[in-house]
């Protein structure tokens, strides 16, 4: 991978980290409040179903984490197992796309699930 790409990957991980810091902050507060009266499916869906703001928030969250986590995993594979090179890069790219799709499936589920 070119040096330029390496630098841009580093930058992408930092920028996604900044986005995630905000998202995780909101997520932590939501969780702490939500578990207060016990979690229920109705309570969760009551918050998220048809709510465009939550949909946009979770979409941003999923995209940011799908950028952030695979880059971190790539570093760990390189440093711990010595896996570096194009095969590893491909594996990482594919896992990022799958994570994003899998995450968006969850976002659609809590946005519109059970109604369709």
């Amino acid at each position, binding site marked *: *991978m070119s*040096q*330029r790409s*390496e*630098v*841009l990957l*580093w*930058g992408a991980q930092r920028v996604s980290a900044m986005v995630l810091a905000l998202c995780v902050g909101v997520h932590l507060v939501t969780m702490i409040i939500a578990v207060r009266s016990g979690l229920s499916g109705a309570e969760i869906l009551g918050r998220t179903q048809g709510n465009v703001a939550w949909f946009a928030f979770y979409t941003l969250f999923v995209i940011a984490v799908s950028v952030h986590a695979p880059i971190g995993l790539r570093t760990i594979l*390189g*440093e*711990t197992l010595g896996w570096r090179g194009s095969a590893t890069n491909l594996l990482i790219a594919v896992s990022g796309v799958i994570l994003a799709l899998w995450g968006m499936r969850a976002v659609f589920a809590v946005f519109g699930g059970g109604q369709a």
Partner: protein
Amino acid sequence: MQTLKVRIWRGAENGAFQEFEVPRLESQTVLDVVTHVQRKCDPTLAYRFACRVGVCGSCAMTVNGQSRWTCRTHVDKVAENGTVEIAPLRNLPVVRDLVTDMREFFDKWAKARGRFTGSKTRKDDFERVSPESKERKRVDAGIECIGCGVCYSACDVVSWNRDYLGPAALNRAWTLVNDVRDTAQAERLAAVAGDAGCHACHTHTNCTERCPKGLSPTAGIAGLKRAVLSATLSGKI
């Protein structure tokens, strides 16, 4: 007479520790101990030193698992249960006993473009750099490095990635990035970019913890990360 038990590394990387007993003296440094062993116990012991007073940086070794200048390390400070373990620096090929081959370490200074490139000749006047300027203060913070290799030996990222330039070379590059007279800035930023350069640093701060001069290569490397990213985004490298 009180004695000190010393375990000293013998041989190359596949060597082993050999135990010696030396007299325990007041204000004794680890270098004093090594010198005693070489002069009184086994003249074949190989080690390096020159100034004995923390100026040259030749006597760096691994003392009880930590990279240190042996001349500035008092036995009082490091002895555990009356024992001191002395080994060569880490992350460098061991030549014999306490001596490492430091070529990789110095080659990386060159790779990181650690030399000044100016545009003026001896006929030009001096460049005026204000001691108060942000750049000059950053240079001051890193310039006292004497190249002893303690940070390089302490760095895990070097262990994990042999091509990583390491804290000392990157610290040197950072002082030159902040040298307003230097004319090779784009080449230098390109030289320290990416996976073998500054972006491999994980801010373990092993280098900053161990630097005998109290420098913080971590801070300089963080500066390089930012400078390289902005040069990349603006298409300069």
